[in-house]
Structures are given as C-alpha cells and as structure tokens.
C-alpha cells in the first residue's frame, strides 16, 4: 500500500460518520466509569445508571465501586460494565466512557480511557487535556447551581446528558430509575427536572459536537 492510499483511507468519509449511539451494535464489552469526590453522588449515579441499563433496558450489567480509604479523600468511583455475554471481569480495564466530576478524578482515570473512548468531564476538571480520547467539558456543577440553586443535582444533570448524548441508556429507563429512587422524596420533582435539563443539554451538544465513528 502506498503512502497516498494510506492517507486516503485515513481521511475517508466513513470515519466521520455520525454515530447515534456510543454503544456498538454488538456489545462485546463496554466499560463506564463515573468518578469524582465523596458527597457528589458518584455511587448513586453509578447505581442509577446500572439499574436503568440492566432492569430498564434489559442488558447484562454489573456495577462495582471503590470502597474504603480509596473512596475517601476526594476520589471515589463507580464502574459499570455492559456486555452481551456474561461479565467475566467486573472492573474497568479499558474505559469506553469516563464521567469525571473533579480534576483529581480526571487525572487519575483519563489515562485508562480507550483512544476511541469518550470523556465527559465537568468543566473545572479539565484544565490540561490528556490523551487522545474525545473529551467534552460540561459545567454540570455550574448548571446545577445556576438553574436549580443546588449543586447536589449536578450528577442527575450529568445522567441526563450522558443518556441523550451517548445513547447508552434509554430516556425512559433512566427516568424510571430516578423516579423509583426518589419515589417518596420531596426532591422527586427537582431531580426529574434536572434529569430533563441534562437530557436537553445532551441533545444540544450532540447537534454541535456529535459522536463520530
């Protein structure tokens, strides 16, 4: 193969084709890591996402998390593995999707993201970009404070965003999971609004900066 043809292939249109869904048609294994600081709702975000994909969308999912000292002092994480077969190894190895809420989390985990993977990070987290993975910086915490006056819903906004931007979970399922969790809580409405906001935000971003294959 000549140099020319190689280049030609590299820049072929096919590679720029817009993908509607981050998940490949046949998921052999897809790894998601949600990371951030203690108190940001990282574990519950992981649980909600895992539950929505597992029970809601009916896929094989296992979700695990860091415990103990590792989970304190500003760095906590939840791993979600999706697979079309049984999940043999339930921790992240090569991350397909990283959601990072803090700079520590971004620095710690971005190196494990696949080249073809996607990083969605809170704006503050990404001061110095690393690696080749596509990175989006979205000010989830800022949005939560401004739009809802409560930064606690930043993770729910992110859930909505992830769901509409990447398509890894259906809107119905993630809504169902959030609804079930806050069933008898006075925060149900707040969370549903935040989720919806995140969902629209993800759609908007997708138009401006879509996923490509």
């Amino acid at each position, binding site marked *: 193969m000549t140099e020319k043809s190689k280049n030609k292939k590299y820049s072929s249109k096919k590679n720029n084709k817009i993908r509607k869904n981050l998940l490949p048609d046949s998921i052999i294994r897809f790894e998601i890591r949600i990371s951030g600081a203690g108190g940001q709702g990282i574990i519950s975000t992981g*649980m909600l996402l*895992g*539950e*929505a994909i*597992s*029970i*809601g969308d009916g896929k*094989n*999912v*296992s*979700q*695990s*998390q*860091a*415990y*103990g*000292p*590792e*989970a304190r002092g500003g760095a906590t994480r939840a791993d979600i593995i999706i697979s079309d*077969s*049984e*999940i*043999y*190894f*339930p*921790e992240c*190895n090569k991350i397909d999707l990283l959601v990072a809420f803090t700079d520590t989390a971004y620095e710690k985990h971005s190196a494990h993201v696949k080249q073809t993977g996607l990083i969605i990070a809170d704006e503050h987290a990404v001061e110095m970009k690393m690696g080749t993975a596509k990175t989006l910086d979205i000010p989830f915490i800022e949005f939560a404070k401004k739009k809802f006056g409560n930064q606690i819903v930043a993770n729910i906004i992110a859930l909505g965003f992830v769901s509409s931007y990447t398509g890894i979970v259906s809107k*119905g*399922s993630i*809504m*169902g*999971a959030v*609804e*079930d969790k806050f*069933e008898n809580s006075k925060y149900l409405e707040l969370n549903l609004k935040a989720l919806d906001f995140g969902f629209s935000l993800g759609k908007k971003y997708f138009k401006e900066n879509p996923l490509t294959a």
Partner: protein
Amino acid sequence: MALNRTTSDGHPVRFVQGNEAVVLGALHSGCRFFGGYPITPSTEIAEGMARELPKVGGVFIQMEDEIASIASIIGASAAGAKSMTATSGPGFSLMQENLGFAYITQLPIVIVNVQRGGPSTGLPTKLAQSDTMQARWGTHGDYTAVVLAASSVQESYEATIRAFELAEKLSTPVIVLLDELIGHMREKLILRMKKDIKEIRRPFPKVPPEWYFPYDIPNDYTAHPAPFGEGFRYSITGLVHDRTGFPTSVPSEVIERLDALREKIITHRKEIWNWKEYEVTDAKYLIVAYGSAARAARGAVAILRKKRIKAGFLELKSIWPFPDGPLMSAAKQAKYVFVAENNMGQLIHAVRENIRHTINVIPINRYDGHPLEPEQIVYFIKEEVYGHSTV
C-alpha cells in the same frame, strides 16, 4: 414511569449487591434472628437485616463482638429460630470456637463470610478467597464443614437459601463464602416467587418428652434438638455427650458421637454438592474454581475454545465437603487441571488430594486484592499448551 421490576413470568427483579441478595435470601428462608458485628466488606448484610427483620417480626441485634454474635445466634437457634450472622476474615477467626459448639450440639446456624484479604487486618476493602481452608478447618477438634459459595449476585441469593435448607435439614452450621467483589457488586437479581419458596424447618420431636432423646443417632445420623420451652427439658452441652445430651467420656460413646457427626455430613454429601460444568466432556485442560475466580474461569474457557484449545471448567458452588465425585468425572479427559484462586493456593490441596497421582495440578493465583482476569488464566493454560514443549 417507574421501571418494570418483574420478569415476564412474574418474578420480582432487583438491581442489588451480593450482600443485599444475602439479606433477601435469608428473609425468604424464614430467617428471624440476626446477631452481628460490623465488619467490612460484610456490613451491608447486617444493615439490611437491621432494616428488614423488625418488619417481619424478627430480631436484629448488634452484639459487642463476633464471639458474642455467633453465641447469640446459637442461643436463638436453641430457642427454635432460624438464625444467622455475617462477617469477614478477622470476625470469622473470632467465631471459630463457637462454630465447633454449634457443630457438636447440632444447632443449625448460617454464617456468611464475605472474604477479604488477610492475614490479620490485611486488605479490608479488597477481595480474597483466603478463608477457603479456615472455613474447613478453622474450629478446633475433628470437624466436618458444610461450605457453600457464590460467584454472582444471583448465586449469593440462591446459596443463602440453600444454606438455610441444609442447616435445618442437617442441624449443623453452614457457611456461605462470598468475597468482597461479589458482596459489593450490583447485578440483576431475579427473586423467587412466594409459592416457589418451600420453607424447610427442622422436624419437631414426634415422641412425648419422657421418651425423648435429643441426641439419638438415627439412620441418617441427624439429631434435631427440640426448641427450648416446648416441654422437652434436656441438656445441651459442648462436651461430648451421649444420646440424652449428658456429658460422657466413655470411649465407645465418644467414638459413636464423633463418627455420627462426621457421617451425617458424609452420607448427605451428594445433596450438599453443587457444581456446574462448562465444556468438560472433552476438556484436556480443566479449570477448577469457585466464587469470583469462577467468573474469570468462565471467561477463560470462552477465549480458549475460540482458539480451539480444549479447555473446560468445573465451577464449585459448594466446596466442603469437597465434591470429589464431580471433580473425578469432570477430569476424566484432562491432562492438566488448573486451580484458579484469589489466594496463595488453598483449594488446590483438596484437588491434589484426589487427582495428583494421575493428572498434573497447576495453581493459578492472584492475591493482590483484585479479581483474576480471564486473560491471566488463559496465559497460564497457553503456557502448558505451547510453552515448554515448543520453545
């Protein structure tokens, strides 16, 4: 709209941790007493029981230590309740003395050990399978253990239910070995329907108190001491005892008692054994594993079979008494048997005991607190397939 949490055939579905699955399994088995002490990574079981037991008229108590925890559940069992505790390595060590008490007095209890790395405080938040042998030999004296295992959230639920069934049926302590990974991991769990849950309970004496011998040795060797307060006033003691329950040191009676305790487990071994075979019929390379190591082993077989290497896997869902029958049958075609464990090599001793004279038994171990990866097992097996002979 809320998520649909039932399967098409009506089974409730949950997305929960292995530890939470244990709680559900225990409640579905009719467990009504939990005495425990917090310890990572088993604490969610105690927390779940504290939340749920009072709602069904059961009793939860947090005791002052693990010695008291197991003592309280044996007391509860003597009073007739299905009872359990949950712990991890250090706590399991503390329970060993009274484990022997439950064994010799034939009082059914269930102990869940969510294993973590050791020795000593070790790795509290990381997985290990390093209590494999402690579960078998931990208590002093000659002891025959009944130990079940689980490699997924679903199996944690099933193993807990099975543990209560066996404990009540055999009137003996039953241990369930999970590990940190399985205990803390969330997966889909399909619950049994109420109508499918057959609650097994130890039989009540069929004779009047004056004819009653609590520690008679029947044909199946199993004594079922009557619950306290039902009119059968008899003696329970940790001393070697005769059929009335009173201490004895008459040599013939001692032998009779110790033999009966062992025979009880051995004669019921086929009922206790639980295993699953993966591609074993023509397997030249057989993997043996339980718990979280079993997940990696299943993955390894999938990878190796794609490469046309005749690998198979025998998953043990019960480990003591050791399922030697299933091992012999699965290893019929095997040239090599690999024992994959998250420890420095424990289960392998039992495998070697049975087949070392005919088949090469090779250990695959990981003990850094992380689960075995399928590729790690594949690497070791490939080394045997191509390694020494072809280099």
